[in-house]
Structure formats: C-alpha cells, structure tokens
C-alpha cells in the first residue's frame, strides 16, 4: 500500500533509524544533549534512564513532534533535521503514549479505525454518500481492524467507548490503534506503566508477537528492568539528556555508569 521507495533496501539487521548528535533545548533547559544511537530493522530497542533523562523527548523528536536544534535523523535512508508529525506518520512511524492518549468519546472500533486514516483515500464526495467506493473502503479497512482486534483479544469491547474501559485495556486499545497504521517503527512510551503482573505479561506477549509476526521494529521506553532485559535486543541508557551506555542487556546491566545512574554514587 505504501509507495515502494527507499525502504526496499532496508532489510533485517540494517539500520532503520539513525539518530546522530541530536540536541534539544527548551530555552535554557537541555532536554537532550548530543545523543547518537541507531535502531536496526526488526529489533526491539529499549530506551531507559532515570526520570527526566529525556526518553520521551527522544521519542517526540523521532516522530517529529519536537524539532531538535542540532543533529540529524535518518529514517529508511532519508536524512532530516526537522520533520512534521504527518510526514513521520506517513513514512511509517507509529506511537503510543505514556499517559494513555486515546480518543475517549469514540468506541474501541472507531479508535482503531482512526489509525487507518492515512491509508484511506476516498475523498469528501464519496464520504458524503457513504455508499459505493467509500463503503467498500470502510469494509476493507474494517477487515484489517478486526484482525488487530482478534490479535489483541479485545473482541468483547469492540463497541464500548474507550473512556469507560479499565486502564489496562485502554493501553491495549492504544497499541491496537498504533498497529492499525501498519508501522515500520513502533514507538512505545512506557507500555506497562501502572499495570499489574498479569497485564504486564500480556503486554509483553503482544509486544513480542508484534515484533515476530509483523516484523515491526520496536523502540520502547520502560522502567521495569525485568521487562526491559527480557524483551529487548539492545538497550540505550540516557541520563540528564546524555547517552551513558548502549549495548545488549547484559552489557548494560554490568555497566558501572548505569549502576551509578540508578543507584547513586557514594560520596
């Protein structure tokens, strides 16, 4: 469905997204300072760090919501320093939020259908009629959405307004909405925050399944170290906006700078 462009050259293991020397400031506050890392196609990449380390800002830079003052971002071989969220979304970057950002007045179904907006082509005229091509398009996308609903096991809440759902299910619907965009890079901002053990296990399973079944590259921010170490292929650690470590989970776990960042340094 997407225009076959440069992503044809990106295969598993190649660099899908490269962040080079990115710095982001809000006035005098340095949110991110000179951070570089890459995300390879098909991997699960964790971004961790103490509170206020700049993790969410990093995601916002990647999907074009914040514009960094310095540095470059290369996604699927295309380099840019600034990007509009629309362009990021249409190139295949989807995202979930730390605090659930669902469309509260809409049903689960409509929320996930909204994720298909970019893929729907029928214009205003057909939308006014809601027959013929417009209806055919709706049905075609409804089928895809139903597959996602099956995948996430949320059939029962299909027609419930999401504002009425419990938190754990809202997180799941939000994941569904992001999946509906058929992203190549899925950014998950604390997908397990505030969940109990069972919900976390479910969410872990969904993340692993998304990664293996759809081949989606995933970048995730998470505070639960057990989850991070189990799920991710590689971990990048930020502290006060700087990168302090980058590598496979075992390396990062034994890295002295990381241990100091999390546990503090004796004086």
């Amino acid at each position, binding site marked *: 469905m997407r225009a076959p462009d440069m992503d044809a050259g990106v295969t598993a293991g190649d660099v899908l997204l490269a962040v080079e020397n990115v710095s982001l400031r809000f006035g005098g506050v340095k949110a991110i300072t000179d951070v570089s890392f890459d995300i390879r196609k098909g991997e699960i990449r964790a971004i961790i760090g103490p509170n206020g380390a700049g993790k969410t800002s990093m995601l916002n830079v990647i999907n074009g*919501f914040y514009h960094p003052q310095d540095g470059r971002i290369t996604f699927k071989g295309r380099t840019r320093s600034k990007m509009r969220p629309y362009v990021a979304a249409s190139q295949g970057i989807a995202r979930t939020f730390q605090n659930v950002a*669902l469309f509260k007045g809409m049903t689960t179904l409509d929320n996930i259908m909204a994720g298909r907006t970019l893929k729907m082509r029928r214009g205003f005229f057909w939308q006014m009629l*809601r027959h013929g091509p417009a*209806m055919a398009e709706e049905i075609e996308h409804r089928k895809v959405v*139903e597959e996602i609903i099956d995948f996430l096991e949320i059939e029962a809440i299909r027609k419930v307004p999401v504002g009425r759902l419990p938190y754990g299910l809202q997180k799941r619907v939000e994941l569904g*909405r992001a999946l509906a965009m058929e992203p190549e890079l899925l950014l998950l901002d604390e997908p397990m925050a505030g969940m109990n053990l069972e919900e976390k296990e479910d969410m872990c399973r969904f993340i692993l399944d998304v990664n293996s079944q759809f081949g989606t590259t995933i970048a995730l921010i998470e505070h639960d170290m057990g989850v991070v170490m189990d799920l991710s292929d590689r971990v990048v650690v930020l502290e006060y906006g700087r990168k302090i470590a980058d590598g496979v989970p075992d390396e990062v776990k034994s890295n002295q700078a990381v241990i100091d960042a999390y546990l503090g340094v004796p004086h």
Partner: protein
Amino acid sequence: MFYREAGQFKTNYAADMAVFPILQDKIGIALILTLALVVIPLAGNAFFLSVVMIPFLIFALASIGLNLLTGYTGLLSLGTAGFMGVGAFACYKLTTIFPGVNIIVWILTSGLFAAAVGVFFGLPSLRIKGFYLAVATLAAQFFLQWCFIRIPWLYNYNVSGAIEVPTRTLFGIPVTGPNASPEMRYYVVLGIVILLTWVASNLVHGRIGRSWMAVRDMDIAAELMGIKLLPTKLLAFAVSSFYCGVAGALMVFLWYGGAEPEVFSINQSFLILFMVIIGGLGSLTGSFFGAALIYILPIVLRGAPSLVGLNIGAATVEHLTFMIVGALIIFFLIVEPHGLARLWQTGKQKLRVWPFPY
C-alpha cells in the same frame, strides 16, 4: 421486551456498520419519516406547519451545523448567527441578480458562501482552542452583523435596511414570498433537512467524522497519527458553516419571508448553542431534541392553559413559560449533563433489558 436486538445477527460488515443496525430503530426512523412526510402535512393546519414545524426543522438544521463544529470537532463557536446571515444575504443577492435560477439551487449555493466565510474565520482555530476560540468567533459574529447593516449593497439599497423575499416558484408553484403555501414551504424545508441530515450522518460515521472526533478528543495523538490538524479543523468549519448558511437562507426565505440584520444577532448564536448543548454535543439526534425543547416546548406551554380551559392572563402565561422552560433546562442538565441524546440512549438501554434492571 419490544426493543431488543436478540436474534438479529449481522453476517457482514456493511450491516454492522449501518447507522441504524437494529431492526426496531429502522422501523422507528421509517415511522418518523412517514409522520413527517405524510401525516403532518395532511393533518397539520397552516399554523402548525409555519409556526411549529418549519422553524423547528430550520433550528434543527442550524444545530446540526453547529454540532458538527462544536460537538464533533470540539471547536466552540459563537458565530453561528453570523454564518446563517451570510447564507441568507448570499441567497438574497443571488436570487435578485439571477432571478431565473431555481431558488433551491440558490439556497444550497448560499451555503457555499457561508462555508467560505466560515473557513476564513476558522483560521485562528489552529492556534487557539476553547473559550479563546469562542471569542475569536465572536469577532466574526460582530463583524458579519456589522456588514449586514453597513453594506447597503447586501440588501439592494432597500430603504428599510431589511431584505424582502421575492416570490420564487418550483414547477410553477410558489415556494417563497407571500403567496407560498405552508405545505409547499414545509416540504421544501423538510426535503433539504432530510438530505443534509443524511449527509451529516454519512460524514460523521466515516473517515472524516473519525478525524474530527480524534481532533476533539486528543489533538496531539491525532496529529502524530497523521491527521493534519488545520485542514481537518477548516473542513469542520466549512461544513458547519455550510449547514448554518443553508439554515439561514431557509429561515429568511421560507419562514420569515423577510429579515432585518437584527435576526442574525448574537442572541441567535446563543440560542443555537443552547440547543446543541441541551440536545447533546456530538449527536445528530440530539440536535433535533435540542431544537424541539427550546423552540417547540415554549409554544406548547403557551397554548396549554387555554387548551385545558384555564383562564390565565397572556402576560402571566409568558412569564410562566420562561420559568418552566428555564427550570426544565436546568433539570435536564442536572439529570444528564451530556444532553437529551444521552438520556435517549440510556432510555433505550433500559428498554433493552426491561423488565430486568441490567
């Protein structure tokens, strides 16, 4: 017991995505349409048609217009009457410059002028929201009303400063002007309202409606999903103003038969905003409920004392009407802050499970 979808299985997505998926709802809407199209014109007298039904339908249409903007897209607007005025004056200018063209064509075309003006005044909506946007649209309201008074070209240099609707015919039968029969005017208004309600329903149930609601509920998430905020909001302004413009043209041409700029004052904007809020933000059915409660209920209350044989002075009746309507508005808002449409939904849900509590 009677309102239950048990046994009604949907075997395809089209049936599941229908606006009225339940059989009882389909019967209900068919009944309402029969009532509106056949029973009311046959049974209703001229007073009922021209004082109750025509204004009700026009207010409902304007409420739908504002609901698309405020209820579905979350953009608060106080410029409704201004946009209605643009429709009315555009229609007047068009039909006096080109008298040969069918008036219904001009009524619908005048909506396009209102849409263009709406888009222009909708431009600030990218940067401001909520009350601040309401103030920006208030500027539109005052500016447009100023235009209606100060630009004599708009009312063809009429000395009274008002517009007088000329007689226009459809298939040789007068539709507008003093000779038009209430039945004819009713059918024209009803036809346009049914058509535009159907279109609005199609829009809000499809991609465009979902984008509007996404912008309303969480604009940041909508933007990061690739919904462009400005075009989405401007489209909402355009469609909403189109509806208001058509409602304004209908109001002057098929209800009042003439109008002063005062008709399109801020009071009218507030009246329609109240209809939308009481009817239910984000509900097309609610727009009809709101228009009925605010427009028809006072008429019923005014007529009620003489109907039951009570002899109360006209002034007292008028005061009582204000008090009762005011109290009812507060009552309904306390019972259900989300408006009559939500009350209607709750009622239907109760009916589904009746005689059991849940």
